[in-house]
């Protein structure tokens, strides 16, 4: 199948100006999302995964945040230089988002129907009755029983899992080309997580939506994604197909992360592998590999210069001095 690029991010840098100094939340991130792909973005808290995705939609509050450099292209058009009108057309209609906490992302004062119908009227230009019909149809699609009745309910009358379903229904109701799911199941129980992931997988295949799935859970990405970007301290340190990340990872951070997760299908009551130390503060981070204080392979060069990306073929790339020298660029 021909790969059709829909989103390209080039050298994106989002910084926040704080009293303590400049926080480089996203520091030079580039990736490409093709039609129908599911891209996983994995990283620990504070590595910049959410800020990156908010930057894509230009939702970074400014001040204190500022996109310093780089650009985001949606079908070749720069999102960062779009007018407000074009941006409104993009948000919700072409790219939509689901957030971690389904309670805070629905308006508690409005019925589900009001919120869904509003979205559809605004973006799709449907009449209210058409929109309501479509809304019921979407709720049925995400597995809400008796949607004709439930559509008139308020958010507090739904459980966490049901609310997340409503969010998915709302996000997919305008047939977006890209769905950005920011930790969509982190607040949910495992059995409900399994239901929600199943729905996202089914519907995005059915509606041919590309997905960016942001999570800290390696298990979730391994079942859902075609390719994965691993982020650390505001940068993508490794990117590859899901199989390559798990079978053949190159970056010491990726390896450490995979090894430090306890596995359900393996019995070991021994010590777990663990990466020493803690993630660095992103304030005034020096021009070095930010992982070097925790890395068992750290060399002199790691302390002074950030490595370029090394290409291992098959779209597998990693930023580490173990593989690159200063002559080679990825």
């Amino acid at each position: 199948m021909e790969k059709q690029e829909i989103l390209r991010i080039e050298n994106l840098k989002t910084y926040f100006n704080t009293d303590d100094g400049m926080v480089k939340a996203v520091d030079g991130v580039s990736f490409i999302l093709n039609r129908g792909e599911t891209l996983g973005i994995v990283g620990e808290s504070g590595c910049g995964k959410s800020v990156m995705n908010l930057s894509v939609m230009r939702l970074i509050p400014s001040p204190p945040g500022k996109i310093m450099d780089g650009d985001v292209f949606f079908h070749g058009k720069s999102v960062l230089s779009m007018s407000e009108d074009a941006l409104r057309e993009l948000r919700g209609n072409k790219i939509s988002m689901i957030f971690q906490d389904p309670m805070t992302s629905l308006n508690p004062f409005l019925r589900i129907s009001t919120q869904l119908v509003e979205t559809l009227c605004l973006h799709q230009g449907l009449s209210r009755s058409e929109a309501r019909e479509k809304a019921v149809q979407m709720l049925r699609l995400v597995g809400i029983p008796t949607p004709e009745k439930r559509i008139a309910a308020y958010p507090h009358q739904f459980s966490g899992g049901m609310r997340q379903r409503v969010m998915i229904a709302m996000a997919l109701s305008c047939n977006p080309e890209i769905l950005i799911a920011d930790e969509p199941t982190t607040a949910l129980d495992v059995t409900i997580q399994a239901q929600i992931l199943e729905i996202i997988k089914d519907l995005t295949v059915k509606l041919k939506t590309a997905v960016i799935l942001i999570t800290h859970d390696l298990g979730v990405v391994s079942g859902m994604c075609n390719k994965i970007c691993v982020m650390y301290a505001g940068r993508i340190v490794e990117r590859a197909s899901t199989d390559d990340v798990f079978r053949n990872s190159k970056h010491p951070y990726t390896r450490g992360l995979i090894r430090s997760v306890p596995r359900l299908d393996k019995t070991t009551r021994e010590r777990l592998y663990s990466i020493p130390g803690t993630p660095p503060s992103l304030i005034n981070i020096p021009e070095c590999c930010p992982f070097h204080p925790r890395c068992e392979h750290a060399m002199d060069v790691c302390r002074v210069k950030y490595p370029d990306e090394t290409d291992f073929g098959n779209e597998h790339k990693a930023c580490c001095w173990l593989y690159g020298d200063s002559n080679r660029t990825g």
Partner: protein
Amino acid sequence: METQIVLDNDILLDVRNLKVHFPIEEGVLLRKVVGTIRAVDGIDFEIRKGETLGLVGESGCGKSTTARAIAQLYEPTAGEIYLEGKDLCKLNREDLLKARMHMQMIFQDPYASLNPRMTIGDTIAEPLEIYRGRGFLQVSSSDIRKRVEDLLEKVGLSRYFVNRFPHEFSGGQKQRIGIARALALNPKLILADEPVSALDVSIQSQILNLLHDLQEEFGLTYLFIAHDLAVIRHISTRVAVMYLGVIVEIAESAELYRDPLHPYTRALLSAVPIPDPQVERTRKRIILEGDVPSPDRERHGCYFYDRCSQKMDVCQTNIPHLAQVKPDHRVACFLYFNP
């Protein structure tokens, strides 16, 4: 009055038919009870010396309430809790304080469980100071200070941190401080309520290793509560699965994961994503229908009846109680025995 019972020497904690019900109240001036939340609805289990019992289940199934009832932070509605043969529910205040010395808690949220206005040194010393103040411990202030510094090093922090405040530490470090505080009184039993759930993956493994090392060094016994089945598998010697306030299955850890018997345990295990794309592609998932029902009514049948894919007529009218079906493997399900 102390109740003594004859016990197997290996058993540190014995919980029998524990029930914790919370009243639902309504009305502004004249508050009246309109119902009860059956958070824990009759559970039996025991913890042997030196083992780790993993308690696993989804939110609202009563895991934390169980731990808090054991620590006597909630007064149980019914049941007995024997710590080394003494029924904690029947002890007077003085004896309870003495018994509690042997039993300490570690909490989920390391940010909320430390007092932001107290230095780390004071926080860790507080349990020692309390027991010294009541005359249970004969120690000097310099002993306490020395003990606090030793504890800090035991949990992997520097002894020079004693005068710092909680906000100066990261989540993982705060959790280490919480662990140091729990160890201060040299307890036998640690009730760990989701101690790693709020932490990042790379920090989580550090804390799990620390708990493992401390167990070996001090011969600790853990009641380890988590919702992450992989973490539970890693740390536990035995595992109890809770659903809607009851234990549906309890078994030796490897046995439970090899051969889960209860339909809920099976669904739960199959729902956990495994960080391995090849395994994920071939796995068959049992997707449970619906949500966990509210625990606000008395049940006369199996607690899992509403969501079970293998329910039978008998399950609706009879409550299955835990029964031994294999060595060290008990399950509450009529698929394996008749009512």
